[in-house]
């Protein structure tokens, strides 16, 4: 911890960064995101295995863009999001300094994006057992059962759009649900419109989602919405062999053409 705080203090002092996005302790010892702009705030910075938030979402924030020279603490989810965002040409206006602490508790300040890619190669996260189990359970359902399963869950959605807000890949300046000429998806929260919203979001994230699970973790009504995109990713891996958030240069599966792509779906 001290090592991390000293390093960030040094980076701030040298002017390498003007803002650090990391973690601090919140209520009930729950880590929460924090924003360090001066040495006086350094002591707030913490890191432990509970620091799960995907901080990359903040890289879209105008206040963060203004800071320009930004340091960010990269847990695996954040690192993968950064790679994916780079491949989608979204971070060109920031000078990023990426820091992490590896499994042996060593502090790493990445010297290049290539070294982030290398780090991800050796630390690629798999789905948790719980996620795998749920996906298998849903796979095993009949179409009708699956429809009912999701319908029941989506009927409780309140359309607070927290799933969209915490997602680093949901960066559209105008989301489909905000279009009202025409109104593609109803504003009111009711089952069919909620279904449309979550289906639309899952389709937009197919092969781009980096499986951080943040949208499911924070859903105030407890819908495991992250399973939709996690399942999409499994399908994309199977069909195209592509994985998101491992390279800063590749486009994502549905946005690139490869003559060797399987085209069995064209009939």
């Amino acid at each position, binding site marked *: 911890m001290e090592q991390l705080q000293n390093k960030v203090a040094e980076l701030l002092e040298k002017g390498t960064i003007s803002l650090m996005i990391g973690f601090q302790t919140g209520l009930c010892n729950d880590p929460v995101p924090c924003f360090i702009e001066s040495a006086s705030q350094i002591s707030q910075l913490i890191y432990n295995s509970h620091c799960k938030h995907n901080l990359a979402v903040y890289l879209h924030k*105008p206040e963060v863009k203004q800071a320009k020279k930004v340091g960010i603490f990269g847990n695996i989810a954040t690192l993968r999001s950064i790679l994916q965002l780079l491949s989608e040409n979204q971070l060109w206006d920031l000078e990023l300094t990426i820091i992490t602490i590896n499994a042996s508790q060593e502090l790493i300040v990445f010297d290049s994006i290539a070294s982030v890619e290398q780090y991800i190669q050796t630390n690629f996260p798999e789905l948790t057992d719980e996620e795998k189990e749920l996906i298998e359970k849903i796979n095993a359902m009949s179409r009708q059962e699956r429809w009912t399963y999701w319908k029941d869950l989506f009927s409780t959605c309140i359309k607070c759009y927290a799933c969209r*807000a915490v997602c680093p890949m949901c960066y559209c300046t105008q989301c489909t649900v905000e279009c009202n000429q025409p109104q593609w998806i109803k504003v009111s929260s009711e089952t069919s419109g909620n279904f449309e919203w979550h289906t639309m979001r899952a389709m937009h994230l197919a092969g781009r989602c980096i499986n951080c699970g943040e949208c499911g973790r924070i859903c105030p009504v*407890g819908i495991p919405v992250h399973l939709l995109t996690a399942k999409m990713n499994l399908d994309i891996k199977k069909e195209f062999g592509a994985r998101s958030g491992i390279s800063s240069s590749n486009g994502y599966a549905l946005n690139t053409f490869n003559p060797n792509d399987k085209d069995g779906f064209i009939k």
Partner: protein
Amino acid sequence: METKLLKSSDVPTLFDNLIKSGKVIIAPVTRQSGKVFFERVYSYDQVEKDYIQTQFSAKSVVFPKVEELFAFRKTDDGVDIKDTLSSIPETVVWGIRPCDSSAFNYISEFFLRENPDAYFAKRKELTTLIAIGCAKSDDACFCTSVDLNPGSTAGSDILLTQMGDSFYVEVVTEKGNSIVSESASLFTATPEKSKDNYLAKPTTKFSVDEIAKKIKTAYNNTQWKHESMGCYSCGACAFACPTCTCFDIQDEGNSEEGVRKRCWDACGLSLFTKHNSGHNPRKNQTERRRQRLMHKFKYSVENLGIISCVGCGRCIRVCPAHLNIFENILNVTKED
């Protein structure tokens, strides 16, 4: 105020009587996700007894997340309007917390003081609140900082406080009295007692008078930016909040038939203030977060004479970034 005792073992009977009365009963229920929500129940078995706070408030009983105001249909000789007011049912909310009950006082002022809202008025008139005082609190609770406490009777029709194997019953209003009279044999008269030993003691985070004074000049405090940095710009806090009343009117349908709906909205969502021209008077999250907090502690005091935060702590619990409203308020009211 009349006070009575009710044996814990008689609570299921009281509950059965409520259900038999034909009223809609709303009570805390644990969903599969493990979170507790107010839902319609049909038996006492469904009711969750061990909870600190429900995920969302009970405001949806009087201010539903989506409320059909009317439906219309073109006919050969005019337009048929289907009025929805007459279908509002008589409702009892069971197990609401005292903070939530007191929030009903605020939203009633909001909807009824000027140009009373017919839909809200009808729902409010037909709703009875049976509150249960809090035996437990958590780090997010701060009702005692906003002049309330786990045994406040404000807004409730009946307040129950568990004391050993009985409930101490405070019959606050005439509506509460009629519920008690319908099951009169279950209640025994008792003199007024002190509930203090049976109630939670959440820590007091600030003096509300001091905050109300200091926040008057907090608008330009430079701390707002830092306090809002973590805000993701979703509507979770507003939708969970018992006093947030922002709404959006939507017409759904076509020129032949359709429905007008009132839907929850949130000042934290950028679309809330966005003009048709593309201009947004609250252009960033700092300004939107400031609006939400200033409304709770300043604007509602100026407009309605009431602080519109009841310290239930829901916004802290549901916030994806766990932004902490009482810390935010303390920090923006410090000297700049």
